[in-house]
């Protein structure tokens, strides 16, 4: 048998992932409809539904990440830069995550100048924000602030919560090679680790005049919780 006749295992994985993702989409839509009906009737099991929704979204983010990494390995990361209103993008990311977060009583605040515009790949950046916001369902207590502004030639988007903060081994600055996300194999076992690794990769692929984008995770901030920061040149 010719080599070319053998399907590459990563191709099989990717195509299976693709199909899985479609099923996840259907599950998600069905669940959304159920939650809608539940709300009308005021069912007591509503909380469980939100947990299901959170997990489904996590699965969905994981599969998007897998597929993107697979594509990045196959060819390269195609970046589609364009000017976008930062406020509109953040607004959109919040709208998607709001039902889930408000079911837990989380108060989301957005601080962004209306005239803030930046060039970036909307889809990739929205993917990162969506994933971080969805994670807040588990981690924050009841507050979350999303803020954006420009500083030293970078667009800085920051998410601060009043949860317990990141465990020490998740604290990172993607500009530092050693000890950062992605460098430990064990680090990649959890979804959050892979998520950070992917976010760093997306940020890094945004370059301008020799400068690269990066992410940082810290503890503290205005609510003394976790702080996630995305910098784009």
């Amino acid at each position, binding site marked *: 048998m010719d080599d070319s006749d053998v399907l590459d295992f990563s191709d099989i994985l990717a195509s299976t992932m693709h199909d899985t993702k*479609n099923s996840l989409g*259907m599950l998600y839509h069905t669940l959304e409809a159920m939650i809608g009906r539940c709300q009308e009737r005021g069912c007591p099991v509503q909380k469980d539904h939100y947990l299901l929704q959170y997990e489904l979204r996590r699965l*969905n983010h994981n599969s998007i990440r897998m597929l*993107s990494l697979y594509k990045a390995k196959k060819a390269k990361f*195609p970046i589609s830069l*364009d000017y976008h209103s930062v406020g509109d993008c953040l607004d959109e990311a919040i709208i998607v995550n709001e039902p889930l977060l408000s079911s837990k009583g989380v108060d989301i605040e957005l601080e962004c100048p209306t*005239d803030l515009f930046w060039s970036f790949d909307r889809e990739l950046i929205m993917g990162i924000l969506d994933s971080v916001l969805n994670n807040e369902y588990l981690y924050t207590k009841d507050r979350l602030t999303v803020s954006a502004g420009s500083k030293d030639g970078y667009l800085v988007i920051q998410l601060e919560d009043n949860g317990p903060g990141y465990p020490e081994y998740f604290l990172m600055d993607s500009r530092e090679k050693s000890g950062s996300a992605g460098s430990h194999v064990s680090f990649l076992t959890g979804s959050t680790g892979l998520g950070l690794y992917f976010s760093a990769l997306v940020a890094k692929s945004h370059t301008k005049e020799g400068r690269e984008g990066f992410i940082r995770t810290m503890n503290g901030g205005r609510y003394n919780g976790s702080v996630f920061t995305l910098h784009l040149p």
Partner: protein
Amino acid sequence: MAYLQKDPIAPTIDKLRHHRVLVIDDFVNFRTAVKGMLAGLGVAHIVDAFDGESALLRMSASKYDIILCDYNLGPGKDGQQVLEEAKHYKYINYMTIFMMVTAENSMDMVMGVVEHMPDDYLIKPFTKQMLEKKLLSVLEKKIALREIIQTVEMMEYDRAVILCDEMIKKGPKHIREVLRIKGEVFAKIEDHQQTEAFYKELSAMGKMPWAMFGLGKCQYQQGRLEDAKETFTELIKINDKVMAAYDWLAKVHDAMGNPQEAQAILVKATEISPRALERQRELGAIAQKNQDLQTAVKSFKTAITYGKNSAFKAPSDYTILAKVLVEADSPQEGLNVLGDAQQAFHRDPGATVQIGLAESLVYQKLNRQEDARESINKAIKATEKMAVRVPADIELELAKALILNGDGDRGKEIVRKMIQSNHENEGLITETKKMFAGLNMAQEGQELLDAAVEEVAELNNQGVKLVKEGNLAKATSYFDRAAEKLPDNTLINANAAYACMLDMKKNGKTIEGIQKAQTYLERVYRNDPQYRDLPNLLTVYREISKEPLSWMTATF
């Protein structure tokens, strides 16, 4: 929850309630889910379709305000093709919201050229809130940019630039779209220096694919092929899904005298995106030029396959394939291809002309002279049908076949008419001269051409004289007759429009006069959308009528 300050005139969901929505997806579950969301938003009129063909059929029967179309629709047309055909058939206009729905993210999708981009993308799975937010923001954008688009379509380019600048000054709300439009307007005015400076400045702030694309095109138009090559190569390196960049890079290589290189680039592009008809045609043509007949055959066959049931199918795909097959010593297969063509275009007399001509060439190769003559007769007979429109190059081919078959008078008459319709088309005149030279009729041909061009010029000058003398009623009826005689001549139709509009300005508008002006202007646009005097003619037109012309989509 503290929100951004909202635009006070931003549309609300009430605006969407009365919109008619078409949902296109091959999964019934998904269609049901989306219909449920729309119903939840209060939309009453929702219709669905399971593939591109049935969607287009629905659009042909009634108008939809919002179209939610899945990109991957299974074996038939994909979402991009649905969008392009819907535009081609004018099923959708500027105010129609066309959203592309994608399974994962748009990284997987190829990017079409700017004119054929959907209004926005929706990534599965999406929520009701997301759908509402996206629909409203697209609607708001369309309302905000409508005046600029109208101005561009009216070819008031200076005013369009002013409107763009005003919008940019007001705030960055729609800056991306406004900048794009501004660049396109500069390119339309053909002010290369300004266009290049504009795109260069934008690219310096961030390598946006559309700005780099505009820059490369502008460099090509100035004949700076090395620069253009560099720009398009860099663009593909940044984003290998911008398919139009491959087409232009191939064009650059071809212009630089590297058709082999051009072919290699188009091969790569067709591997990424095989469904694009026009690209398969380009690849076929360049492969034929490179004498790579195998690739040429394959490309035209692919073009035929993807063109089936499409608005963009063309008889030339079959006739060129047949000619390539003759070159490749497979004339019999060529005949079969033309048989298929006849079936695919049996109701199109223009195609019959083209197919008959190709057939005669194949028969000649097979040494079947009788059949060859028979085919030519078939072609001629088709030209006598009512309302047949044959491209000029096919008419030239037909004339040549007639002259070779001993019907010189008829052939020359065809040339005369064709030249009179295109008396300012230098390229076509050169081609015609070449044909006559090849037939050893250079002298006779030249005389025929001179006489034909002279006759049109004279016809036009007489009318212009009447206009100058201020005899507008007489000038109008004079040009009416001239335009009736030469409905495809751009200059005559432009002047006919001018005379009748001037007449109306002076002596009052009439419904009949306005309709006439519209017909003439639309003919000018059909023949040459970049016609130099069209913007001026439209300025006069606006003074007498607010009715949109056939190519305007934002004026409903």
